[in-house]
């Protein structure tokens, strides 16, 4: 039977060159952590309670290509970086902005997403129409979660770069800052397109979006310092980006998924 090796060779050559270069983790289990409180990156399916989202799909795909399985765990955002740093989890993800301060605590992967933030305002808002006119009026307040993307974009792209600016009101969760927007405690909250549509859909007539997308915050996976997973994950990520899978996932979660259902 000479035909078998030939078939095998044909099949092998059909695999893109990059696939052959990916490291094989030999069925290793990677303990990954997220919170399930960040639509559409990681959240609980309202029907089943199961964790779904862009980051779940992306990391499962990365693990599959590296011949690894993922053991998904949950922790709150407040304690995630510390827990990954302590080695309780191998990798963490929660739309974590890559920055220098965090780089000192944990290792980052290459960025997998550049976030675009929109300004959500009350539906009857007429005092400002974009980031510039918001910044110009000293009376206007923005709600944010400390240490999150919407906080950094509010500081560096909307306001004056002062992280202690009193015009930023800090809240414990995303949901609380939106409630504060609804009740008039703050005048805008920054969020990505999917979340904005979700809130507009769930509260008909309460909110609208104004201005242009803001921000160039980049999200990365975080790893326990000196983790041997950084390189394989980066390699798999590069391949996923190259073959269009990453774009497909973005399409699926940021444009096709309707959070307001």
């Amino acid at each position: 039977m000479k035909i078998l090796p030939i078939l095998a060779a044909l099949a092998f050559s059909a695999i893109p060159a990059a696939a052959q270069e990916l490291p094989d983790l030999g069925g290793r289990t990677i303990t990954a952590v997220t919170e399930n409180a960040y639509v559409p990156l990681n959240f609980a399916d309202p029907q089943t309670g199961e964790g779904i989202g862009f980051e779940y799909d992306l990391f499962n795909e990365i693990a599959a290509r590296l011949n690894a399985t993922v053991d998904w765990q949950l922790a709150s955002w407040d304690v995630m970086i510390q827990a990954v740093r302590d080695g309780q989890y191998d990798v963490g993800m929660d739309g974590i902005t890559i920055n220098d301060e965090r780089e000192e605590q944990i290792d980052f992967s290459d960025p997998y997403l550049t976030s675009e933030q929109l300004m959500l305002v009350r539906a009857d808002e007429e005092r400002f129409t974009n980031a510039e006119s918001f910044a110009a009026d000293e009376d206007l307040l923005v709600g944010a979660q400390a240490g999150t993307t919407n906080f950094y974009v509010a500081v560096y792209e909307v306001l004056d770069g002062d992280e202690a600016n009193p015009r930023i009101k800090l809240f414990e969760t995303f949901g609380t800052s939106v409630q504060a927007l609804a009740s008039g405690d703050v005048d805008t909250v920054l969020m990505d397109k999917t979340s904005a549509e979700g809130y507009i859909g769930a509260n008909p007539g309460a909110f609208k979006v104004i201005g242009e997308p803001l921000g160039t915050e980049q999200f990365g996976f975080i790893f326990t310092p000196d983790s041997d997973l950084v390189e394989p994950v980066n390699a798999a990520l590069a391949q996923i980006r190259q073959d269009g899978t990453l774009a497909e996932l973005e399409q699926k979660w940021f444009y096709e998924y309707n959070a307001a259902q």
Partner: protein
Amino acid sequence: MTPAPSLSPPRKTRREVPYWLLAMGLLFVLGLWLIVADEGYTSIFRALSSGVITTLWVTFVAFMLATLLGLLIAIMRTSGVKLLREVATFYVELIRGIPILVFLFYVAFVAAPAIVAGINWALTPVIGAGLIEPLTVRAFDFVWRAIVALTVCYSAFIAEIFRAGIEAVDRGQIEAARALGLSRWHTFRFIIFPQALRTILPPLGNDFVSMIKDTALVSALGVQDITQLGKVYSSGTFKFFETYNVVAFLYLTMTISLSLLVRLLERYMARRSR
């Protein structure tokens, strides 16, 4: 004990209609009706119900452990040995002065790794011989760290309840028991404890009820209790208001029914002691 002589004839205890309870019952029925009839509320309830088990589990385990630890501390605080008294007082004052949330983070990220390192150090010979693997912080999950934190925090308060109960027992009885030749342990077991229990049980029950509420703090670690599931559900569906209505409903159902039980217990104890 003979009741104190009263000048006026005993007043007939007229049972007042507990309107507050009727109002509470009405609120409960309203909540239940919403959950059954409104599809949105039904799905919120379904999403949060697994958190009820986590909340109750954390409450029960932490409360049992806190009661045992609290009893030990109280015995130390009332003991005749000065060192024990000082150590126990130090513990109670230290723990009572720290907010539970702060203590929770402390246990999770300072104490837990230290405990794991300590166990590994203690087991060095066994680990060195290759008999067992060294422990990792992973072996000590967030649920247990939360239970440890709640146990320690509540043990300080419960110790004070026990101490008050023990000290309320008449000194003369203790002296009499000792004079009759009962050992220290037997005096505690048969004379002090049964009487102290009567003073202890009602406040202990109240602490149990307040622990149910305080377990909401464990959501800060991401433990999947009612509060954390509420946070997760509301952020996934953007239904903030409705979700927290159900969260409050679930906590109220547990706390009110338990404090009613505590009241019944109090009444029963009062009748028995007459």
